Structure formats: C-alpha cells, structure tokens
C-alpha cells in the first residue's frame, strides 16, 4: 500500500473523530512513514511496518472509549453548588411534593390491602353467626316443640337452614381467604419488584 492510500484509508476510518484529533493522528503516522523512508525503507515497506489502517483505526477508537472523563474544573463545581443553594426553595418544594406523593401511594397501598381483606372477613363473621344461630335454633326448637308445634317446627326449619348457610359461607370464607392470601402475596411481590427496579436503575 502506498503512503497516500494508507493515510486516506485511515482518515476515512477515523471519520467519527473531531477534525483536530484526526489530523493529529494522521500527521503522526505520516511523519512516521516519512522517517522510515528517510532511513532507507521503501514506501510500501514503511507502510507495512506500521500496520493496517483498519487495525490502527480500531485501536484508536477503542482506546478513546476507555479514556477517563476529564475532571470538572473547580469553577464549574462551585458554580453548580451556588446554583443549587440559590434554587433550593424551588427544588426543595419539589422534593416535598415528591415525598407527599410517595406517602400517598403508601397509604393507598395499605388501604387496598385492608379493603381486599374486608371481603373474606365479612364472610367469616357471617358464617360464624350463622353457626351460632343454627345451633341455638335447632336445639331450642326441640324445647319449643313441646309448647307449640308450629313455632317449634318453624324454628327447627330455620335452624337447619342456618346450618346450611353456615356450611356454604364457611366454605366461601376459606376459599376467598386462600385466594386473597395469594393475591396479597402477588401484590406484595409486584410492589417489591417495582421498588427493586427503581433501585437497579438508580444504582
């Protein structure tokens, strides 16, 4: 490869660099080739010794990525601090708003939990009272039957009916309870997942 070929290839491959930087690289390598030639090397050999433009460009580009960022000048840091202090009423109130929102969310979540659990709870209470009433009714009905058959029979009927209600509601309470435990667990896990993601993004 001839020197001009090499240099124009390199220039093309280093398109992404700023003009100044690119030119510095190019003049460095141009100089190197010239020096080799001055020392007696043939143009083509000199180019070959330096390497292929592709490899060199790759090295340069990957090297740039690993360069650490330049430390921010002190005046900039001071300026930022001053601005932060001056602007504190603004971002201070924004932070407060954010905190209030977060609290509101927490309260909503807890209310959601309470509401969710009210339902099985109500069923539970219902079934317990049904049971109590059922027992009293059936037993009591026997006693009453001796006095007044009609009332006794009605009461017995009611007792049995209540027993049935108790069985059904108890079953429902258990089922609902189980379901709601599952829902609560999933909900809590989902919340935790959200929180984790936030953390992950922050970190």
């Amino acid at each position, binding site marked *: 490869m001839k020197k001009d070929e090499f240099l124009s290839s390199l220039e093309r491959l280093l398109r992404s660099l700023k003009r100044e930087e690119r030119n510095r*690289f190019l*003049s*460095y*390598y141009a*100089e*190197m080739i*010239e*020096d*080799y030639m*001055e*020392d007696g090397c043939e143009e083509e050999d000199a180019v070959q*010794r*330096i*390497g292929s433009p592709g*490899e*060199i460009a790759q*090295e*340069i580009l990957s*090297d740039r990525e690993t360069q650490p960022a330049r430390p921010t000048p002190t005046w900039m840091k001071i300026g930022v601090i001053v601005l932060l202090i001056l602007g504190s009423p603004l971002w201070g109130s924004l932070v407060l708003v954010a905190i209030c929102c977060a609290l509101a969310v927490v309260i909503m979540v807890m209310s959601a939990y309470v509401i969710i659990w009210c339902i099985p709870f109500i069923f539970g209470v219902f079934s317990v009272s049904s049971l109590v009433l059922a027992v009293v009714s059936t037993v009591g009905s026997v006693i009453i039957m001796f006095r007044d058959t009609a009332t006794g029979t009605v009461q017995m009927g009611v007792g049995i009916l209540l027993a049935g209600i108790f069985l059904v509601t108890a079953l429902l309470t258990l089922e609902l309870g189980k379901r709601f435990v599952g829902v609560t667990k999933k909900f809590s896990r989902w919340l935790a997942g959200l929180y984790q993601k936030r953390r992950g993004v922050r970190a």
Partner: protein
Amino acid sequence: MDTQLKKGFLEFCVLAALYRSDSYGYQIIKDISVCIEISESTLYPILKRLEANGCLETYSVEHNSRLRKYYRITETGKEHIQEFLNDWQQVTDIYEFVKGAVEHEEG
C-alpha cells in the same frame, strides 16, 4: 510480556529516551527497540498520556520541507522517572515474593 505490565514500563522507557535530549517519534522507537518491543501505534497513546500528565511537552521543527514533532521531557517527567527508579527495590521484593510462592509449590 504481559500487556498491562508492558504498558506501564513503556512510559518510563519513553521518558528515559527523552531524558538526555529531546527526540521525535521515529527516533524514540528506534532507541527503545533495543530494550523492549514497541510499535508506532503503541507509542502514540503513551505520548498522549505523558503529555496529558504534564511529563513532556511538544514543539515542531521544520525538516526537509515538512514539520516534525519533537518531544521534550519536563521537570514533572523527570520526577516521575525518579520515582520509578526509587521503587525498584519494591519491584524486586514483589518478584521475590511471587517467585517464593511458586517455588514453594513445586518444593
């Protein structure tokens, strides 16, 4: 030789090449090559880094109708090289330590 190790040493080699007198890219490579292998593309980032650290400065001189870039070592650069020389004792200590561990294994 390990690339990381080499990169570290080459810095000092370059500074050493510039210690007595200023020099330019091609010459530096020739001077260092007697001691350790170095290529043009390796030299460039080292020169860039040394310049960023203030260990050397550059200027251009006209030569055969083209501009040649010369490098000159600074006081900071001289101090840097001095540190390297002072640290040599620790380098040999580390070497002995590593060697001792290896030989102990084989023993």
